[in-house]
């Protein structure tokens, strides 16, 4: 039971995210009927599962939410912005309730009573609350096809037909992995329906054939669709069930008629749809893995494009429909994936060692050993990429959480803010996604609390009352770039400067460029809020954000235009496990420079290197001068700077866009290296990002280009020396 329960909550998460996605689409006015249906289904599935686990509060709240959604679905309610606000907040409450139920926490009804009342009020017409249909959730283990009696009050349109359908599945129907519940759901979509299950054919328990089919249903359907559309619903169970459809006093339709009409219906729907529509294997997996009717059903709903009605709908040019995943998935514990990834990491190192041995053994380039090894190398790389892809996750769930954050902070500060997201499908390593949540949350809070102005101020400035926070993700040259921008007031530079001086962070007479001032935000101990608010002032500042991003091997930069808003841009590695690097030699040591940082490599001529100041050097590259950094002396590997003409210069670009030339002795090669933590057993080392293990089994250090070239490096150096003499 505990396992089933866990599955239920896992699926709840999926349903919740589906729901939120749909609600956001509705909020933006992109609500077609399929979106509303998807939201309704999600809430409904949660309610159903919760009923099975006797989570009363959850069921009750989900029920009133569902009722409201049902009214939207049936067109009795037209979504207004106010209503969508209530709906979105109801969604938040629902996910809180799911979470509380999952953790077995006490649920305090007072916390959401207001919203529950608001939701109820949506379905209250003229002060009279509609009589709610009784909640009926009796999950049954025998049959997935127990009718779900979603009963809707019938809209009385003039062209409405009344259908009476007798539906008696034969065993083949179930054997072919069809599910009656899906058929009922489709019927329900056509109009108001009422189904009665006839269980009289069920034999005594000892006579039951587990593969048999004993139930039949009598369905009354009120709908304005033609009979062909009703029959279309049964298209996939043609010949697998006894079916009669009567309508408005019409004579009973003969089987031959049905066959003809079915053929016609099939003709209109392309075969590809049919193939899609009966994912027999996929469903078998989900059923086998989760032998629990409610859970299995909800899974099926999430995955299947079952009936032609839906298939036709989703073939419309519509981005929402594309969001319904059609791929099958399995759930795997992350521990197992991580173990696999570690093993592959070892494999990569081992393969590199083997390659080195083969080179040392001087085999001819055409020998079978060398050729076999090359194949191994390629395979290793492919295995590694595939394994990494397992860990890759879209940023969508992360972004969705942020939209809730925006709503909450906007409510708390009395501002009107809308979150717009782009590139949610961008995939990045799971760890990166997880560890991004906290800094991103903090930045979102900041953007809404400090960035966006109050509606009055905005209107006075000629902007719309509602502020926009934009969150985007994109892949750019082997990294993921996440940008958070707001259309608020921008950074108040005089205030930031004054505040930094007040706090003694900078000398009063210091000359600072605009971007220098913006970067003051990242200094530890900096906060511009006059009073520490409960929203942004939680003891974490932008310095913590910056450190979290840096700990992920990322960089953060800021740009701001007064009156127009600010943009925070984060560039992060796609994975924390491997890195494409250039191996270089410096003072007898092998160092790895991340390839993403390198713009080009140059062989400096003596005439191109110029002294600047007491010991500074710059290099001219096509008439621009860039600082020349001697990696050997910078890292303390040697005392005297090396001669540029005997060295190689790597032109590197930092996260902030600054260019520097790194002077190294020679370039060995380009290779993919497995990143090993230095922090685990030692600590951070200034100028070094991490370590890796070379083909000969020795450890090589990976340079942290940003830290190496940053101006504060000298101070860090002093700090290190200070520590070194202590203890």
């Amino acid at each position, binding site marked *: 039971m505990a396992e089933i329960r866990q599955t239920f909550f896992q699926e709840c998460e999926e349903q919740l995210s589906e729901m939120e996605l749909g609600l956001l689409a509705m909020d933006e006015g992109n609500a077609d009927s399929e979106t509303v249906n998807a939201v309704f289904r999600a809430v409904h599935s949660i309610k159903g599962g919760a009923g099975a686990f006797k989570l009363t509060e959850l069921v009750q709240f989900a029920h009133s939410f569902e009722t409201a959604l049902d009214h939207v679905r049936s067109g009795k309610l037209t979504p207004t912005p106010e209503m969508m606000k209530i709906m979105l907040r109801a969604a938040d409450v629902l996910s809180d309730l799911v979470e509380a139920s999952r953790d077995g926490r006490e649920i305090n009804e007072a916390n959401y009573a207001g919203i529950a009342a608001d939701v109820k009020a949506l379905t209250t017409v003229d002060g009279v609350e509609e009589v709610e249909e009784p909640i009926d959730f009796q999950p049954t283990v025998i049959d997935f096809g127990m009718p779900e009696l979603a009963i809707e009050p019938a809209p009385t349109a003039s062209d409405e037909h009344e259908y009476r359908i007798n539906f008696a599945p034969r065993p083949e129907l179930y054997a072919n992995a069809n599910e009656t519940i899906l058929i009922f759901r489709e019927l329900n979509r056509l109009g108001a329906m009422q189904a009665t299950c006839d269980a009289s054919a069920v034999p005594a328990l000892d006579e039951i054939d587990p593969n048999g089919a004993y139930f039949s249903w009598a369905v009354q359907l009120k709908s304005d669709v033609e009979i062909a559309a009703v029959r279309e619903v049964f298209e996939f169970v043609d010949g697998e069930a006894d079916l009669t459809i009567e309508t408005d006093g019409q004579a009973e339709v003969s089987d031959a008629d049905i066959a003809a009409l079915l053929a016609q219906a099939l003709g209109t729907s392309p075969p590809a749809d049919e193939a899609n529509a009966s994912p027999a294997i996929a469903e078998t997996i989900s059923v086998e893995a989760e032998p629990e009717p409610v859970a299995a059903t909800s899974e099926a709903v999430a995955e299947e494009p079952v009936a032609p009605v839906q298939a036709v709908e989703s073939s419309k040019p519509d981005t929402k429909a594309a969001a319904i995943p059609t791929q099958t998935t399995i759930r795997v514990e992350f521990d197992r994936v991580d173990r696999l990834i570690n093993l592959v990491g070892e494999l990569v190192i081992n393969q590199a060692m083997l390659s080195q041995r083969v080179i040392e053994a001087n085999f001819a380039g055409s020998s079978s050993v060398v050729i076999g090894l090359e194949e191994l190398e390629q395979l290793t790389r492919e295995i590694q990429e595939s394994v990494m892809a397992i860990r890759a996750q879209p940023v969508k769930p992360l972004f969705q959480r942020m939209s809730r954050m925006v709503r909450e902070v906007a409510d708390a500060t009395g501002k009107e803010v809308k979150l717009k997201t782009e590139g949610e499908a961008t995939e990045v390593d799971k760890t990166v996604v997880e560890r991004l949540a906290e800094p991103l949350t903090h930045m979102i809070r900041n953007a809404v609390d400090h960035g966006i102005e109050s509606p009055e101020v905005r209107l006075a400035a000629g902007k719309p009352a509602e502020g926009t926070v934009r969150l985007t993700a994109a892949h750019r040259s082997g990294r993921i770039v996440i940008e958070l921008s707001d259309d608020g007031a921008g950074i108040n530079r005089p205030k930031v400067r004054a505040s930094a001086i007040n706090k003694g962070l900078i000398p009063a007479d210091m000359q600072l460029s605009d971007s220098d001032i913006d970067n003051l935000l990242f200094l530890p101990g900096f906060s511009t809020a006059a009073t520490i608010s409960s929203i942004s002032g939680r003891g974490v500042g932008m310095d913590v954000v910056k450190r979290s991003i840096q700990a992920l091997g990322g960089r953060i930069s800021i740009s701001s235009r007064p009156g127009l808003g600010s943009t925070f841009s984060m560039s992060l590695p796609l994975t924390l496990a491997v890195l494409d690097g250039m191996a270089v030699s410096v003072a007898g040591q092998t160092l790895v420079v991340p390839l993403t940082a390198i713009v080009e490599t140059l062989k400096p001529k003596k005439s191109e290197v110029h002294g600047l100041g007491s010991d500074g050097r710059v290099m001219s590259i096509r008439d621009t001068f860039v600082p020349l950094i001697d990696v050997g002396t910078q890292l303390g590997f040697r005392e005297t700077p090396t001669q540029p003409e005997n060295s190689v210069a790597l032109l590197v670009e930092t996260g902030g866009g600054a260019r520097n030339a790194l002077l190294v002795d020679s370039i060995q090669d380009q290779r993919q290296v497995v990143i090993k933590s230095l922090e685990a057993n*030692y600590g951070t080392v200034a100028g070094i990002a991490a370590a890796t293990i070379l083909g000969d089994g020795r450890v090589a250090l990976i340079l942290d280009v940003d830290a190496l070239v940053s101006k504060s490096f000298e101070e860090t150096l002093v700090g290190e020396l200070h520590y*070194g003499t202590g203890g």
Partner: protein
Amino acid sequence: MQNNDLTANSANNEFVAFRVGAQEFCVDIMGVREIRGWTPATPLPHAPSYVRGVINLRGAVLPIVDLGLRFGLGPTEPTPRSVIIVVHIHQQVVGLLVDAVSDILTSSEASMQPTPDIASDMAKTFVKGVYAVDSRMISIVTLDSVLPISAKAAA
């Protein structure tokens, strides 16, 4: 899981005894993960002189501390007999470069003598107490402050 704290209650503790220069030391065997031969280490920039660098211990990066330099007894010249004692210090794994491992001692806590009161910072920082074994003096080492402060703070 490790037990560097020699004031632990168990009656009899086992210790790995080793030699650094002319002096003998020991650490609780429970904190020792393995003992291995010397392999050249990759130097770390800006590290204190007693941090020899890092080596590859089956895929993990292991810092090597030269105990001779750390204790102020002069550098340990790596020879074929030099060994690295791999120990747990809190959550970290660290290799200690010593001249030789000499013995496994079994000793009760009661026979531990307090560190003789001498004006040595090294003794105050690293020596928990001493044992008398066959007219030799073996100092019990506490490893808490073997790594530089900056490294510990970052960990």
